[in-house]
């Protein structure tokens, strides 16, 4: 690199800047559950809006002008291009600022980043998608990707547990999946104070009693709070899932998204480059991963 003494005609910071946010318009704010809104954005640049492709499980760096930038997983599916959907919990400085924005306000988006789910390897296999609580946010992309490419996968089982119906993300659309004959959609709540819940009541692991699984030919995608990992991962191993076919999406502090700033480093991997999708084997081998 020292050899290139002459400056390029247009410096790379202007033309090939990995930190460059692209401006996008908020086209919809859907108040899914309290403190968990679904933001739909579309790049101002039409060509970019249509060109922007990604894998289920990838994330973007979302900028709120004047406030900062944070990693947000993509909840929409690449099979439905044009807009990006992000399920954002109001939890920190940036997301609080995002919640103050309205339809037609502008944010910055760059990405997509991370490895995403290995959809080529998963093709032809059965899929088990197991989510607890907010873990549905990154897995919803995989759900729709699999359903929109239904012929690519064999059996599809979705298990999703929330504390109560009011906290279930994407509740209406997931309830509409229960009747589909080409998949098994098991929705459960720990308790139903509303008395109107017509699906399962019980903890997420009890859904294994209702699912027919063929572990040697299945990829499991798991995301949720620590309790989900604690009770689901070992259960899957007991059922005969290889640790390499148990995939999980992890969260870390990130400032760059591209393997430079150092914050998301776990053991010898960067969550932003080598993750956020890791296998259970990775998680066991890397210190402090879960």
């Amino acid at each position, binding site marked *: 690199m020292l050899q290139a003494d002459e400056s390029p005609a247009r410096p790379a*910071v202007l033309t090939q*800047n990995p930190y460059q946010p692209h401006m996008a318009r908020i086209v919809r704010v859907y108040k899914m559950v309290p403190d968990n809104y679904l933001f739909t954005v579309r790049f101002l640049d039409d060509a970019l809006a249509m060109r922007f492709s990604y894998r289920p499980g990838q994330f973007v760096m979302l900028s709120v002008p004047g406030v900062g*930038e944070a990693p947000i997983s993509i909840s929409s599916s690449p099979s439905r291009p044009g807009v990006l959907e992000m399920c954002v919990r109001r939890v920190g400085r940036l997301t609080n600022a995002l919640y103050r924005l309205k339809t037609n306000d502008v944010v910055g988006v760059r990405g997509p980043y991370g490895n995403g789910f290995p959809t080529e390897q998963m093709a032809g296999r059965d899929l088990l998608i197991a989510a607890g609580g907010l873990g549905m946010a990154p897995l919803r992309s995989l759900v729709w990707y699999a359903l929109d490419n239904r012929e690519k996968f064999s059996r599809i089982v979705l298990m999703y547990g929330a504390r109560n119906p009011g906290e279930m993300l994407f509740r209406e659309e997931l309830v509409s999946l229960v009747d589909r004959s080409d998949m098994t959609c098991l929705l459960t709540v720990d308790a139903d104070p509303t008395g109107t819940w017509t699906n399962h009541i019980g903890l997420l692991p009890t859904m294994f009693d209702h699912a027919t699984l063929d572990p040697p030919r299945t990829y499991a995608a798991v995301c949720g709070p620590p309790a989900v990992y604690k009770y689901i991962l070992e259960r899957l191993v007991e059922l005969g899932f290889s640790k390499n076919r148990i995939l999980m999406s992890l969260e870390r*502090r990130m*400032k760059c998204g591209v393997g430079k700033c150092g914050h998301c480093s*776990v053991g010898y991997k960067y969550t932003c480059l080598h993750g956020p999708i890791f296998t259970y084997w990775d998680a066991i081998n890397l210190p402090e991963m879960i």
Partner: protein
Amino acid sequence: MKILKLPKEKLDFFAVVVQQFGEVHAPVEQDGQYAFKRLSRWSEARLDYHRTILPPKKYFLPPCEVLFRYRPAVGYQPETEGLDDRLVLFGVHACDIYALNILDQVFAGPYPDPYYQARRRNIAIIGIECQPDERCFCRSMRAGFVHHGFDLFFYDIGDYYLTMVGTARGDDMVLATGPLFQSVTDADIDEYKRRSASRHLAFTLGVEIRDLSEIVEMEYHARIWDELGERCLSCGSCSMVCPTCYCYDVNDDVALGSRAGRRSRTWDSCLFAQHALVAGGHNFRSSRASRIKFRYYHKQRGFVEEYGRPSCVGCGRCIAACPVHIDITEVINQLRGVPHVTGG
């Protein structure tokens, strides 16, 4: 590689000529320590320094750097100011050049960092050989010599500097001085070898890095990390002075009464309490012990996995900077279960 020699008495003249390649910065003395600074006159330069407080990384990854300026209706505009400045860093030691070569790898990869790379392109480096002091252990980190990453490198061979010409720009510097540089003789090479052998023996500090990453892995639950956590103040001094530490934080700020702002990055440290803190309050490394362990694990184990070598060059700055006298060589020797290693 083109190899020449420069008579030592011509160094002053060379330093004047080299100004046409950029503003010359070199180590100057400052309260008994040394720092790379812009020279107001050549006589300020102290080429016999042992180590500067901050490594030359400050020129390539500045402690605070504006990345973008934001204006409503325009969006984020990359900051270009300063990226094209031509500088000549005069008198950089081999370990510090080695560290820049390590940073080159970090700031390349699938997402090259255009800010770092622009500065690296535009800042010339003239390296100079040094003699180890009691805190130098670059020899044992295999970073006591550097094969690339400089424009020119000077080895002291008595009345001359044996000069390795590393780049076309380095060659231009040589050519710009006219007939100042001379060809080397067999006797010069012999003198170089003699001095190199004696420098090799001058190291009093060292570590053994063979299978260190395996040992760090095996000792992951060792008591030593808790003991270090008790001592460590989480001040981050070791990261700031480290020539290979590159963690940075990114912050936006807005001018009062305006909607325009800027996004800048500043040096960060994995020892700072919030380094692994995520929104919602969970901290993946909330204890000091876990953070200092992470620093060692990342440099001596993680980096080996990713880049094939530890991200430590043995410059000794962290030993000098630590307010509670945590000494990386002692930590490594303790992990290995061996006493003090001389030279490595």
